[in-house]
């Protein structure tokens, strides 16, 4: 972003650029935690497609890794998974 004035640096507080976790580790908000069972996974990647927080990373062999720093535990991945390869458990148990 080009800005012609050094004086206006404070506007960075007003303008949000895409970046990881600008408001901190939102994974702390989680009540339910998704657990990935690799053995049941058919690598359809629906969970990756539907995750609203972009917290599912695809590995080279098309299995997935869940980013628990930012996953809020909404459960959408578990809900869309055709093989129930993602299981929601109560956080901390």
């Amino acid at each position, binding site marked *: *972003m*080009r*800005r*012609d*004035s050094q*004086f*206006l640096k*404070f*506007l960075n*507080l*007003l*303008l*949000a*650029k*895409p970046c990881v976790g*600008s*408001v*901190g580790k939102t994974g702390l908000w989680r009540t339910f935690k998704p657990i990935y069972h690799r053995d049941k996974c058919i690598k359809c990647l629906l969970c990756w497609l539907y995750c609203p927080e972009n917290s599912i990373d695809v590995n080279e062999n098309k299995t997935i890794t869940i980013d628990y720093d930012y996953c809020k535990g909404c459960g959408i991945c578990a809900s869309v998974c055709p093989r129930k390869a993602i299981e929601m458990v109560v956080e901390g148990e």
Partner: protein
Amino acid sequence: MSITKTVPKIRRKVLIGNYAVAEAVKLARAQVIAAYPITPQTLIVEKLAEMVEKGELNAKFIRIESEHSALAAVLGAAAGGARAFTATSSHGLLYMYEVVWWAANARLPMVMAIVTRSIAPPWNIHSDHNDLLSIRDSGWIISMAENVQEAFDLTLQGFKISEDERVLLPFAVGLDAFQLSHTAEVVDIPDQRVVDEWLPPRNPYIPYVVEPGQKFTVGNMGPDEYTMELRWHMYEATERAKRVIKEVDKDYAKISGRSYGGLVEYYKTSDAKYIVVIMGAWSGDAKEAVDKLRDEGIPIGLLRLRFIRPFPLEELREVANGAKAFIVIDRAMSMGYQGILGIEVSATVNDLVQIRNVIAGLGGVDVSIDDFYKIFKKHIDSIEKGEIIKPISIDWYLPWFKNRAQSNRY
């Protein structure tokens, strides 16, 4: 106001207030105008639409379905780097209220003319100042004109002040319904080439520009501390704006020959014991009443507020230092307390002078020179007698009221 003779090319035209504002917007080469019609403002944007249609003004004129959208479009244009303008009145301003705050908090420069009009019910298109003052706390720079020439000057200056990187706050030009908006006066208009030099095209990169290929959002959610910090920066900007307003006023004198002196206009205040505080078109009538009282040997002066935000705190205190009492004339009421200017002025100089707050002219009720004379005389006599009204003095000026209350129309 001081007038200098040696200025470059001036055209002299007879214009109503609304057309004068439109002329100023044209001279400023506004690039985007979005507005919704409302009496008494309509003629401003009607004229601008005509100018765009005729090819005299190279701007995008957006016809839009509501005032909320009108200011939102202007806000978007300003975020896109354009010099943008809108105008409204009364209910229109209230309808765009949400975006009023967005514009200021997003620190986007723009100019809006607010032709002051009372708020219904009863339905009324005449002037009082409650609509303009409803945006008092939003962060807009708020000015108020006394005559058509000043409405023109403030509009033109508004772009320069608003776009100054020390300010970067939206700018409102207030002018009274009909008394200015539809009243023709002689207006001196500087030459386009001179204005172009004085007010170059807006630098779109100050404060920031939303453009294709740039990934960012304005005003996304963030930590609470961000909000408070940004408010502090706004406060600092309003403080700096005081200086910028004075600078621009001086600078403007070079192309127009006119200088108003800044946030206030002093009228016979230097040796005055009684100071009238007032703003808007009726200040002219109040000045004539001041003259009459001066002829009778009463040391009275007048302080006209040209700007409400930032508030001319230092100027008021300076004048209060030598004075005995302030008579604050209000065309806007804060229900449950006192007149809005009354509140502002009390908070500023209550420790130095006695304050009398007069509520008059609401709903556009005509207040003549004689009325002003009676109001000033009444309060000066009362103060001379040693009467002190505490904690606050509110005087509703309703000379017709007794007759109405006794008539069978009640």
